[in-house]
């Protein structure tokens, strides 16, 4: 972990603090009110606010998680530096692609 990765990870962490708090509230609200897929999608479809919210969330997570994965692999596995970087980058791309697809799936009208 060097200063560049550290700054990226801590900054995305700080960004996600309020996002996670809201997301937890949304989860609890939705489950408590027994929202169906139709109910959820009715609220998210065409919503710029949800698009921005979850769009930022996905990008931040796609940066934050791979850096953590990289640290864990460096310390707990016997893989070399290049393999670790490759796996972490791959994980980031996977999260970004699947995440933005998911956001599109629920906000596009």
């Amino acid at each position, binding site marked *: *972990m*060097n*200063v*560049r*990765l550290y*700054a990226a990870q*801590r900054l995305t962490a700080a960004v996600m603090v309020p996002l996670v708090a809201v997301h937890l509230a949304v989860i609890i609200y939705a489950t408590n009110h027994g929202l169906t897929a139709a109910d959820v999608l009715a609220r998210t479809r065409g919503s710029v606010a949800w698009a921005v919210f979850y769009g930022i969330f996905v990008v931040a997570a796609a940066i934050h998680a791979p850096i953590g994965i990289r640290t864990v692999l*460096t*310390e707990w596995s016997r893989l070399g530096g290049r393999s670790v970087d490759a796996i972490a980058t791959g994980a980031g791309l996977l999260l970004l692609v699947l995440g933005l697809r998911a956001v599109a799936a629920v906000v596009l009208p």
Partner: protein
Amino acid sequence: MGPDLTVSLWRGGVEGRYQTYSVPKRENQTVLDVVTWVQRNLDSSLAYRFACRVGMCGSCAMTVNGRPRWTCRTHVSRVAESGRLEIGPLENLPVIKDLATDMRPFFEKWQQARGTFAPSKTRHDPIETIRPDSAARLAAAAAIECINCGVCYAACDSVRWNENYLGPAALNRAWTLVNDVRDTANVQRLAAVAASGGCYACHSHQSCQEHCPLSLNPTASIAGLKRGAALAFLKSEIEA
């Protein structure tokens, strides 16, 4: 519980085993007394390290019942569970023989962290006036008593998991110099601790603080380095 202590000592190098000895129990006895007794009365081939015997030099640090500590300052009555002791060399360092480790990696990392003072003045210049109650001096004073005994380094799992990690003592030392207004090597020092294996490899386990015989807090020093180096990076004073 008989009159004797059952003492297991590590014998060998990286490969080796614990060998058990019977040592007479005494009223007031430190772990260092026990090790010395074995070497003088039972097995003169036992290798171990000590110097001052009074808790000032840090040379006698070993792993006692799983915990790194100064053996001269550890009373047997406090740590012997049912009259048993297991004593090994410090963790995270190469073993030379038995209870003596090679401290060179520890000292090399001190150099790598730029834990050395870089002066700016000569004896012909007036003495730098440093207020003892200035924030920087207080920060340095809180960390400066380190005698490099290696206990924190032995207790740290980040050291264990990451061979490049400079470790709590080296970074703590670097922090004292970051706070020394007379020092001129701060940019290089922050660059050194901002690199891979530097301060950002610390996960704040705080095992260092927990075990330091002088109650120092390397976690806090390292947090200060994290802030300082991040700021220097954002201001483009150092590169990643």
